[in-house]
């Protein structure tokens, strides 16, 4: 059974409907990419999965349980983490505090060990651990956001454009880390404009356009599909 199962979800803001009948799955330990043009509803889908928006129709199952009506904090408790696309750090808290907030639900003991692990991934954060996150450069913030999501050892991580704003070197590092994380157990659902790279690494991918599921397949398939390439990959 899939770890995450989105079953024909319809969702939106206020009166506007953004997602229409979207279904998708993430299996245990899998890495799945969602790609699509701007405004397709990718971030909306992430928010809906994570309980920040509630689906009007359809259901979201996580680990076998229906989580469609739950609050985000309840979802975190079940082992899902989320890196939002925007405003994803506590700007007034320091880098170290941001990381600690990531582990808010964790047991006391091992927080500093986890923090050290994050510092290993992103040495820059260690240098700046006492700086307020709001004062970090765009890329550095992205690292903080990723870092705090990884503080818990979740079953599933949602990432909304983690590589946006990162230097090529850091993109490499981040994807390497993502791969490493993925290999160590957690499943990953990732939204990326850097589709080439993320599809290469993903087990499977979905293409979302105008709030609908357009294509679905293994990373390889999508990369090689000429239409997908022309429309969404800038090929």
């Amino acid at each position, binding site marked *: 059974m899939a770890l995450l199962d989105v079953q024909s979800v319809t969702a939106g803001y206020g009166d506007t409907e953004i997602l229409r009948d979207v279904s998708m799955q993430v299996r245990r330990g899998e890495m799945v990419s969602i790609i699509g*043009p701007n*405004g397709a509803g990718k971030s909306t889908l992430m928010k809906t999965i994570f309980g920040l928006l509630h689906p009007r129709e359809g259901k979201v199952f996580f680990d076998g349980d229906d989580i469609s009506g739950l609050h985000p904090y309840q979802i975190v408790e079940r082992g899902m983490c989320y890196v939002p696309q925007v405003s994803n750090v506590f700007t007034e808290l320091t880098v170290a505090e941001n990381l600690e907030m990531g582990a808010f639900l964790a047991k006391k003991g091992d927080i500093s060990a986890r923090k050290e692990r994050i510092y290993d991934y992103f040495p820059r954060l260690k240098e700046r651990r006492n700086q307020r996150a709001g004062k970090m450069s765009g890329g550095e913030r992205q690292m903080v956001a990723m870092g705090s999501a990884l503080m818990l050892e979740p079953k599933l991580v949602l990432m909304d454009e983690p590589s946006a704003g990162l*230097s090529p070197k850091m993109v490499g590092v981040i994807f390497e880390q993502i791969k490493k994380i993925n290999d160590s157990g957690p499943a990953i659902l990732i939204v990326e404009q850097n589709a080439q790279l993320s599809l290469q690494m993903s087990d499977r991918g979905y293409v979302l356009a105008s709030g609908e599921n357009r294509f679905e397949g293994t990373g390889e398939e999508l990369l090689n599909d000429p239409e997908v390439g022309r429309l969404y990959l800038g090929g």
Partner: protein
Amino acid sequence: MQKTDDGQHAHKKPPVLEVRDLVKNFGGLRALNRCSLKVAEGTITGLIGPNGAGKTTLFNAITGFFQPDSGRVLTDGQDITSLPPHGVFNRGICRTFQIPREHGTMTVLENLMLVVPDQAGERFWNCWFRPELVHRQEREIRDRAMEVLDFVNLTHLADELAGRLSGGQKKLLELARTLMAEPRLVLLDEPAAGVNRTLMKRLSENIEYLRRERGITFLLIEHDMDLVMRLCDPVIVMSEGRRLMEGHPEEVRNDPHVLEAYLGGQYGAA
């Protein structure tokens, strides 16, 4: 793409933008460390560098957003260091924000119409006493705004509140706004981050077109190396608050320092 080397030319005329020994400290952190660079007229200059190198800070210092601790900013040889942001804008320099700062409760169209400088209707007595003039200008401005929206693929959202756009759409709006201003120099802070690659490809063609046909100069921060390679010449590399090097894209790409500090493995292999 073939680029002309007009380095010679640049010496005769003062560069559109010159930054001299700019320093900016944040507490103990030196974000700009006597950074100097020049942007020649009619180029699309790329500005790359690791995260936290000080690129955005440099933009902020140029546009009067921060007062630099020392150093000068000149445009066409004139000092604009202590001008406030709107003063810098009035010298024909326009910028986008890395993290979009749209006017959230105004529509996309209004966001664009706002930008045009020196509108008669911005003085409220003109609205009372010279409504005809204001009418005429508004119509022109609106038509221009619609053209620009078409340019960035946002026409269908003209009447949507800007605050409701998706992350990428907001970036497009940022870009669109600079085009409303008819600037001489545009500073773009990561225009492509979060923007779909297919769309970005079209946009970069349009940027190239603007440079060619309208003579607008661009200074562009970007991490998408494909875009930089395709679009920019020269490319300036910043690191730790100062200019590391400058050159043609190819040179930059093969420079070992740059490879080490910035590009990392994937381009190193290329």
